């Protein structure tokens, strides 16, 4: 008997283990979440421990508009995936473009905020513990937004060229999971930095 004997031909058994892309992305999200947790813990631990100013109360203002943009981009990316599932490539492109635009607005908001903090308030990463933890946490999140935007732009590019088909919807869904994660992290970062920390 060879290994052939191990497969006694009963192929009628339904065997559908979870898709590897989804499993892989969930694992990546867990690992990324662990990294964020550590930065958030450091942020919370150092709230109010700076030896010198400026303090968050002096310089931070709530980024309400850009936050709304980022959070609503979760809905648009979801709409893009649904559209692709229904094989509506054009609608998918439209939603992807909206997502990239909303993400871009958020990133521009962060850039503007940082410019203001650095040049008008003199807060840099080496100013005090607030600067250290603020720039590293918000910067880590912004880095993830940038990575997500690059991937979404690629998807948009493929979609516009008509190379994104119905059978790619699982791959787009994996990417959308990442984008949802980036948004969810922002909720936590927002609460910690702009609500709790201020």
């Amino acid at each position: 008997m060879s290994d052939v004997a191990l497969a006694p031909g009963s192929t009628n058994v339904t065997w559908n283990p979870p898709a590897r892309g989804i499993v892989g992305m969930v694992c990546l999200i867990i690992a990324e979440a662990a990294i964020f947790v550590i930065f958030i813990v450091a942020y919370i631990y150092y709230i109010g421990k700076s030896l010198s100013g400026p303090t968050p109360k002096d310089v931070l203002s709530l980024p309400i508009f850009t936050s709304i943009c980022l959070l609503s981009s979760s809905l648009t990316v979801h709409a893009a995936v649904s559209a692709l599932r229904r094989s509506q490539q054009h609608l998918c492109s439209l939603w992807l473009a909206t997502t990239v635009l909303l993400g871009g607005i958020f990133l521009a908001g962060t850039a503007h905020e940082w410019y203001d903090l650095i040049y008008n308030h003199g807060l840099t990463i080496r100013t005090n513990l607030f600067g250290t933890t603020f720039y590293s946490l918000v910067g880590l999140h912004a880095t993830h937004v940038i990575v997500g935007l690059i991937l979404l732009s690629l998807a948009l590019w493929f979609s516009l060229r008509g190379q994104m088909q119905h059978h790619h919807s699982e791959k787009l869904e994996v990417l959308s999971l990442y984008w949802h994660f980036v948004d969810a992290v922002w909720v936590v970062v927002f609460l910690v930095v702009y609500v709790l920390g201020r």
Partner: protein
Amino acid sequence: MATHIPLDEMHAPQQMGEETHRKLWLEVLHDWVTTVDHKKIGLMYIGYALFFLVVAGFEALLMRIQLAVPNNSFVSPEVFNGLFTMHGTTMVFFVGMPILFGFGNYLIPLMIGARDMAFPRLNAFSFWISAFGGFLLYYSYIGGSGLYGAGSAPDVGWFAYAPLTARVFSPGHSTDYWTLSLLLTGIGTIGTALNIVATIISMRCPGMTMSRLPLLPWLYLVTSGLTFVAVGPLTAAQIMLMLDRYLGSHFFDTQAGGSAVLWMHFFWIFGHPEVYILVLPAFAFANEIIPVFSRKAIFGYPAMVAASVGIGFVSLSVWAHHMFTVGLGPAENTFFVLATMAISVPTGIKIFNWLATLWGGKIQFTVAMMFAIGFLFQFLIAGLTGIMLSVAPFDWQLGNSYFVVAHFHYVLVGAILFMLFSAFYYWYPKITGHMLSEKLGKWHFWLFVIGFHLTFDFMHVPGLLGMPRRIYTYEADRGWMIWNMIISSGAVVQAVATLLFVYNMVISYFKGPLAGPDPWDAWTLEWATSSPPPSYNFAETPEVSSRRPLWDLKHPDDPDSDYESGPGHRRQAKEKSA
């Protein structure tokens, strides 16, 4: 012997093997560098780890020569501090992790009846980035302009407590090599762990439900899950350290109000689960090897799975037992005492289940089994000294002493390395198609056992006599010399035994008798294909109906599936054959 069903050998791969011999070495090299085959990547992981095992073992020997007598000047303090930093970092990140991932890479797809890992290219990427990390660390010996000029290895200890790692106390670049190499390796580690999880969840062959998954993949699943939540914090802490050193931020800058203790928390949130990340694969090997050579099914499969998952979870809440002496206060200390002691319960369950597997079996003392029994005995002692260290007041005395060094070497060498040797003797025939010499193996085993016990039994003693770890020399009046002399002599015996093992691996590759597909009369899927397996693993995707598919095949009258599944849950097997 039991009714042995001969499995046809596949001829194709051996022809391919001969062709490889005729290829130019450049082609062979190109083949290995560009491969995405899980078996080749697994072997590269193992080879890479063995290389660093020899390097870090050599570092240990240098340290033992230095410590053999008091006030020795064999190496300078600067060199010694670099040696223990490199030894610890190398053994954990460039021996322990890669060798375990190597075996996982090689075995998991075979054991679950898959043709490759879930993400073969990610697999290759993870290996190469980890490998680069290791060589980057060692490049510091050439390029790391540290405190003492060019060529200084990092000397901050493998847990690199802040603020010793700050620019002020560690000028130059040797600490940067350490940080960067761990960052890179961390990325590779997360990549491979992710791959292992996705493979086990998504690539199982038909019929292999989670409750039929062999214990080795099960434990690798737990270990990989633990890797995400443990290596993440390490990566985060390394990023913070880089920011401190390069951009002048203040995470661990005590002058600017930063906290040194925060680093300790972050490091040990990684550091303690890391111990379980390393030891769970050793358990995984034991779960496969002990049953086969006892000729019995593993006792208490569900309990073993539950205990492993339990260890995984509890191990996340024990980190501050490394910090009983930093002044956390009685309430925190008490919590971590309880959590640490609690982990001994699932660990005990494992030991008892292995004993119960041996009980009533027909134990074959192959070299693999001898190492596995050595593992059981030494892991028991390591666990008991672990309980001693979990008693916080006792730890106030024992912490950071040679007792601790002895304890964790009992885990890392006495348990993990012994089980790794066992795994080599067990799976070498599958990997190469040739048996390892049992005669040389017995020499290897006994020499290593003697060397191990000379070194690490007696290493507990200077700890009890007040000898702290990480000192490059010690005073003559403390009564530590005789013990250090014994420890050092044992280290030499271990080195000889390890060389014997390497020799055995080389000589057996060329001269060892042919193994055939199933030399141990074992039960899991990797033994259903030829040795070495073809690049596609299985000609047809296998389908299983129990945890021991080859047992079912060999005993069609009394298959496992009768006992494992179904609402009856009959655990006690009747002797049908009798």
